[in-house]
Each structure stands twice: as C-alpha cells, then as structure tokens.
C-alpha cells in the first residue's frame, strides 16, 4: 500500500518534470536552437509570436500522440517519411482552421504556417521522444515543449515590439509620465525601427542567449566556489584532527 502510493507520487513527479523541462532547462529555442526560422520570422510582435506558438502547441501535441500510437507499426526504414506525412496532415488541418477562424493571424503568419512541417522541433520530438515513449508521456512532452517554445517566442516578440514601438503587446502603450509636459517626450522619440525588421530578430535572440549564458555561467561559478570552499573546509578539519591526534599521542608517550 505504502509502496504503491510512493510509486504513484514518483510517477506524478516524472510527469511534472517531463512537462516542465521544456520551459527552462530544455527550452527548444534558447537551449537547443530548434525552430529558429519561425522564432526569427514571426516574432515582430507579441501577438504573432503567441499565435505561432499556439499553432505549434496544437501540431506538436497531436503529432506526438499519433506517432507514439503507431510507433510499433512503422518499419524503421520509412520512419522519417511517415512522420513527415503525419505532421503535414496536422499542419494542413491547422492551416485550414486558422484561415477559417482567425484570418488576420493567417495573413500575418503567411508562409510560415505550412512551414511548421519542417520545424525541426516537431520532427525532433517525434524521432527522439514520441517514438520511444508511451502515449501519455509523449502528449505531456509535446505540450510542455510546445508551451516552452511559445513562451520563448513571446519573450522575443515582446522585446522586439517594445524596442521598436514602445508598446507592450497588442498595441497597448503604458502611459509615459512626462508625455506632453515640459519636455514633450513621446515613444516616437525612442523607437528603434531596426528591431521590427529582419536584423532585429537576430540581434534580440543573440542578446537573450548571451544573457541566459551569463546567468548559467555565474551559477556554475558559484557552484564551483561552493564546492571548493567545502573541500577546503574538509581539508582543514582533517588537518586539525590529525594535529590533535598527533598531540594526543605525543602527550601519551610523554
């Protein structure tokens, strides 16, 4: 009884870790650099980034489920083509649904909706995860990874939009405290239009990657320092003990 609940708890934990890993530790864009094309092309605002992310959530979750359902039926030689057909089918469904229910999103994403087929993230998860794991695990993995992808797209879209236009997403501007006053400042003065263009995508992703690298490196350094300090402490203690022992034995003989 006790054992079974412990097992359940552990299983729940693995589900949770499986879901959460896509957000930070194995983020598709910032760690694995997968799916860079949409990450650069459709992130000129928070809105389009979010839209692209949601389409990928749909496609990746469903394709992971289907791939893991039929993983034992597919011969190894034609694995990749059959995965591509599965993914392409879901992309076509998504494309038609977007055209019907969200025409503005369909317009702004344009050619990048059919190109979800060749998004390396989806193919990568199909071959490296869904073809080896159970249906539930694959579904959770797909959902978590795709949501991590969405968060990354939104982060990039948000930074590009705020640098280029001063808006914080969906065309909303925060009130500027000095607007219309003595200095007559407005957002138009600080707009850097380069960030909405193609160059901005590369620059923003490069800067974010460097920031995450710096955080990771400082954490690593701290860990190393802690370890070194711990080793020194142990060494000192051992030396102390040795000296004490030597003194004791010297006292005993004297």
């Amino acid at each position, binding site marked *: 009884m006790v054992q079974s609940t412990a097992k359940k708890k552990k299983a729940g934990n693995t589900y949770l870790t499986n879901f959460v890993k896509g957000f930070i530790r194995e983020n598709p864009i910032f760690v694995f650099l997968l799916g860079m094309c949409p990450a650069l092309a459709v992130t000129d605002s928070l809105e389009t980034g979010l839209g692209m992310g949601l389409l990928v959530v749909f496609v990746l979750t469903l394709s992971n489920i289907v791939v893991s359902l039929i993983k034992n039926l597919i011969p190894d030689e034609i694995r990749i083509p059959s995965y591509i057909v599965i993914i392409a089918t879901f992309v076509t469904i998504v494309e038609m649904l977007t055209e019907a229910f969200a025409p503005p999103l369909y317009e702004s994403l344009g050619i990048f909706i059919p190109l979800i087929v*060749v998004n390396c993230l989806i193919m990568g998860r199909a071959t490296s995860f869904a073809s080896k794991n159970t249906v539930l695990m694959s579904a959770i993995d797909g959902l978590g990874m795709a949501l991590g992808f969405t968060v990354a797209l939104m982060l990039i879209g948000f930074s590009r939009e705020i640098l280029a236009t001063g808006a914080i997403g969906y065309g909303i501007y925060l009130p500027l405290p000095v607007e219309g006053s003595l200095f007559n400042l407005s957002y138009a003065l600080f707009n850097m239009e380069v960030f909405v263009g193609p160059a901005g995508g590369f620059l923003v992703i490069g800067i974010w990657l460097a920031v995450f690298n710096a955080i990771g490196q400082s954490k690593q350094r701290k860990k190393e320092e802690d370890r070194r300090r711990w080793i020194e402490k142990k060494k000192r203690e051992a030396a102390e003990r040795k000296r004490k022992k030597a003194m004791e034995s010297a006292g005993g003989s004297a």
Partner: protein
Amino acid sequence: MSMTVFFVAIVSAMLINNVVLMRFLGVCPFLGVSKKSETALGMSAAVMFVMVVGSILTYLIYYFVLEPNDITYISTIAFILVIASLVQFVEMFIKKISKKLYKALGIYLPLIVTNCAILGVAELNIREGYAADYGIGQGLLVATTSAIGAALGFALVIFAFSSIRERLDAANVPKAWKGIPISLIVAGIMALAFLGLEGIV
C-alpha cells in the same frame, strides 16, 4: 517576355529578398553547418540542386495535378513528400554515379529535407502567382530562375557567414557571448547590410 524579367527575378531572390537574412528561411543550416567554409560550400551545393529541381517539380505538380483536380489544399503534404523523395532519389543517384561526390555531399542530403528554405521557396513560387502573371509555361521559367537566385543567395550568405565565423573563433569574445550569441549578432549586422539593398529593383 524580355530578359529583364529573369534578371530581376535572380537579383531580387538573391540579394533583396535573400532567403536567409530577409525571409528567415533555412536559418537552421545557416547556424548549424557554418562552422567551416568547406562544409558551408558543400551544404549550399546540395541545397542549390534540390531547391531548383524541387521547385520545378512542385510547380508542375501544383498546376498539372492539384489544381485541375481541385485539391490544392493538400499542397503542403504533396510538396514535402516530393521533396523528401527527391532527396532520397538524389542520394541514391549520387551514390551510384560518383563515390567522391557522395562523400562530399552525402551527409548534407538528409538534413535538406527539414531545411525550410526548400519547402519555403516551393511555396513562395506558388504564392507569388507567377503562373497568373506570365502563364503557366513562362511562369515555370520565372519560378525556376527565382529558385536559382534564392539558392545563390543562400550560398553567398552562408559562405560569407562561415568565413566570418572562422575568424571569430580566434577573436577574444566575452565568455557569455562565445559561440552562437556572437554569431547571431554577426548575422544581424549582415542583415542590416542587406537592408541597404532594398529598393534596387
């Protein structure tokens, strides 16, 4: 139809609407295989071949199979299948005729299936409506020319980028920026340079 149409198609696909820096197609191989200029050249040769043949085939399939039967909505599935089987075929063909060429290009061919530049150019050829502008026959010529231009643009940019990255390896870059981050900044500056070509045609 005069020659200027082809010239404009090549220049616009190669420089002004560069696949990598302006349209963001094929960024994965652009970042992935650009560490050495040799591998970059190999990759761009393979891409050039598959892109040109692939866009001819997909164009023909779209206008002679999908459109008459009114099933254009499955174009994405049809295109990716054509490209995947074309890559497979090219791989077997090259293996048969030349071991040397296979050794040089072989490792890049499987990667090309998931190169979004190939599928992207095939889709763009349809979306730009060359067939409506020039008729299906001449539209094929324009589509092929712009595929050649796009492939040349890909080769140009990936070769320049790999040469810069070779120099960057020796440069004293801050620790956090080493590797991909500084390469992305370089790509951003290259995109800025290409922005200057906008409006030539």
